[in-house]
């Protein structure tokens, strides 16, 4: 912690209420108050719909004008109430006194301008520097955010940079005028864990140099446990609880906070491998090459090579890797959504790679996709979507309906939801429906491709439990693809770690996560936020090992 008792308060949010325009039944954010001192990091934590992003946008004065407005309270920035200033003064304050880093580095930058020009724009707007001075400042800022080859980066367009590099650009843009307050809205959520760690470290480093006050909006308690000085917990527009990091993580006072913290998966593996069961899936020397070789040039990409692993009946096998590691390619090959270039995929003793008619296999292997908002047809009822597969495989409608009803109950949804449409459900409920859609076919193997990544932690914990219950009740095997080691630790019996299209390590979850052999696995584990917290038990992980 870099604050002292006499550190100045930079931001003071006093009794702020944000309402829709025109006024709704209930304001979306109600009577929120908190302070942020210079050099301090305050994390606003909450699930989707908690109002955490709205609060940060209100501080920035960037609430969508025709939809939301602050209806009560004061937002004091260095003693100035930003709710009362003129639009011109607010524009002056932005970037100069209060800056923001956004969630999506892929879309936060203008795709048709060079990144150098976009950082330069901040200086053009707020300073009277000459072009040469501005360029010097931008280059030195690029250097401070540790970008390589800054002259080249200066002239690059956003699409020529990686996600982590773009987020560095956004941070450079936010901090070039040394603002007093930095608002970071989920700045690392879209990044791989190793990149996330670097970005968190970078923000911390720059914060310490300039004594910037930081408001960090996130849903990820792992991140919170690493960076927060103090935590503000929000739920559905209300402030639930505030306290120092250790107070909230070890001794939360409110039930909601307890539930939220205990839903956070820890890196402590919980499951043993399952042996002495027949093999459901056997992947042998699988290789996938994208693109075709030209006469002269070779533009192909080897997305997966030399992949060997097995999944036994009733086993949950995790494929872990960062984006681009080839984990989804392997999953798609197993389902033959894409054809492998070489190797065999043996499902229940039959190699499906040479098969032309995949009808039987499709029924045995079912897929759950990442995004529950896009994987259900919005114009069909839940019942129609769930019955379609059964009817395709020759079941009559009455029986299909009965089966769908039973399956919905298995995923803790009443059978009566069959007549409703996907938009009438929340993300978590939709993912349950998507799981029911897969399970209703009575497959032997479920492929869950980042199936819980888009969900809030509490919902994520419920869905993970649901998947395990289904496994226990039906004996289905699950191939669980994830980038999140903590999720894998919760649910997987065995794990396969992939990097750049190859398997680097493979074995029982407890061995690999507790005692990694390969350098890449170790790097992943080190980068995973909060490896040293056992959230379920409100204590540091060291205590769990001791028990």
């Amino acid at each position, binding site marked *: 912690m870099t604050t002292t008792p006499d550190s100045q308060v930079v931001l003071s949010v006093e009794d702020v209420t944000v309402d829709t325009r025109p006024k709704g039944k209930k304001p979306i954010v109600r009577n929120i108050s908190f302070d942020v001192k210079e050099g301090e990091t305050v994390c606003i934590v909450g699930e989707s719909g908690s109002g955490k992003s709205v609060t940060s946008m209100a501080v920035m004065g960037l609430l969508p004008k025709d939809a939301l407005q602050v209806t009560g309270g004061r937002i004091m920035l260095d003693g100035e109430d930003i709710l009362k200033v003129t639009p011109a003064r607010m*524009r002056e304050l932005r*970037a100069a006194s209060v800056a923001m880093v*956004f969630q999506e580095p892929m*879309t936060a930058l*203008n795709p048709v301008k060079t990144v150098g020009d976009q950082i330069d724009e901040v200086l053009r*707007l707020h300073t009277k520097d000459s072009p040469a001075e501005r360029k010097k400042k931008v280059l030195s800022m690029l250097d401070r955010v540790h970008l390589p080859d800054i002259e080249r980066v200066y002239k690059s367009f956003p699409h020529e940079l990686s996600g982590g590099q773009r987020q560095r650009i956004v941070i450079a843009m936010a901090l070039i005028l040394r603002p007093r307050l930095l608002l970071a809205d989920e700045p690392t959520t879209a990044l791989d864990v190793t990149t996330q760690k670097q970005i968190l470290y970078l923000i911390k480093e720059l914060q310490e140099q300039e004594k910037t006050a930081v408001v960090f909006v996130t849903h990820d308690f792992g991140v919170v446990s690493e960076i927060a000085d103090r935590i503000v917990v929000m739920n559905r527009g209300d402030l639930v609880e505030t306290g120092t990091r250790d107070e909230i993580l070890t001794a939360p006072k409110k039930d909601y906070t307890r539930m939220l913290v205990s839903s956070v998966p820890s890196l402590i593996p919980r499951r043993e491998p399952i042996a002495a069961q027949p093999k459901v899936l056997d992947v042998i020397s699988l290789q996938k090459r994208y693109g075709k070789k030209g006469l002269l040039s070779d533009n192909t990409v080897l997305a997966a090579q030399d992949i060997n692993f097995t999944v036994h009946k009733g086993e949950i096998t995790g494929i872990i890797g960062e984006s681009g590691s080839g984990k989804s390619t392997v999953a798609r090959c197993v389902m033959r959504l894409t054809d492998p270039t070489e190797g065999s995929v043996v499902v229940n003793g039959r190699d499906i790679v040479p098969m032309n008619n995949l009808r039987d296999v499709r029924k045995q292997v079912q897929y759950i996709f990442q995004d529950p908002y896009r994987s259900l047809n919005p114009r069909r009822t839940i019942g129609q979507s769930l019955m379609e597969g059964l009817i395709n495989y020759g079941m009559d409608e009455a029986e299909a309906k009965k089966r769908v009803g039973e399956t919905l109950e298995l995923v803790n949804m009443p059978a009566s939801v069959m007549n409703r449409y996907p938009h009438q459900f929340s993300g978590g409920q939709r993912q349950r429906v998507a799981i029911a859609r897969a399970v209703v076919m009575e497959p032997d193997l479920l492929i869950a491709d980042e199936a819980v990544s888009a969900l809030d932690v509490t919902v994520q914990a419920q869905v993970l439990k649901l998947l395990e219950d289904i496994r226990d009740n039906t004996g289905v095997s699950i191939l669980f693809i994830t980038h999140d080691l903590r999720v894998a630790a919760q649910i997987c019996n065995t794990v396969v770690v992939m990097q750049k299209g190859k398997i680097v390590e493979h074995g029982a979850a407890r061995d690999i996560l507790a005692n990694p052999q390969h350098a890449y696995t170790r790097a992943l584990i080190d980068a995973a936020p909060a490896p040293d917290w056992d959230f379920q038990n409100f204590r540091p992980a060291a205590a769990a090992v001791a028990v």
Partner: protein
Amino acid sequence: MLSFVVKRVLSAVPVLFMVAVIVFMVLRLSPGDPAVMIAGPNATSEQLADLRESMGLNRPLLEQLLIWLGDIGRGDFGTSLVSGKPVTELVMDRLWPTLALSTSTIILAVAVALPLGVIAAWQQGKWLDRLVMAGSVVGFSVPVFIIGYVMILIFARKLGWFPVQGYKPLSAGFGEFASRLVLPSIALSFPYIALIARIVRTNVIEVMGEDYIRTARAKGQTERGVMTEHALRNAAVPIVTIIGVSIAMLISGVVVTESVFNIPGLGRLVLEAVLARDYTVIQAVILLFSTIYVFINLSVDLLYGLFDPRIRY
């Protein structure tokens, strides 16, 4: 960027070649013997044979094609079957009025539609937006010949501000030339203003919802700066596309306008040639129109690359 331009320009060459071959084949494959058409119904078989010999019609098809391509390469499109004049001369005479009319129309359309679309997007849902959108429905729905005749009635007959009809070349003086283009250009530009303004509005509204617009505001950029420095260039690609399509539609649509305003352009030439079955002229005009389309497409492609660095491949 340079390699992108070179690649795009080179890729237009085979397209132009294919167009030429297709135009050639269409005429050879259409029913009837060109020699019979030229010589007329009373010609003897000897006359026909001579004609075939002199036109090269009894040589192999591939050789005819090569000869024809060579002629085109030198700018020789043969002679009109009706008037006996060289086709090149006929077409060039008519090309200028059409080019003048199309160019003035598209410049007018873009100059009016772009600000209208931006204003409508900026004032989305307010009365100014509704007014522009309602106007665009009218502009799109009323046929050009009705707008044309109404304008002739008001501005030429009643007010006498502009000549009623006709065309004078630029060599007759700019005033003479321009005054005769005003009414047809305005009449012709209505549907294009409506179309382009709508596309501009839709795309600007879409772009204004993007994350980088929020980033620009977070930097302290003014609303005007957000629009000019960030939104417009990102909305440019679909707008350029629709402008390109408009030019192509415009050129094929001049037939009607040229008739209403009695302008001796390509539209009229095609009309006359088709009615008189003047195949060599039709052939030349088809080839010319196709070439213009290819160049419009090429320009649109190049503009994509100019506006959006992600398209420079």
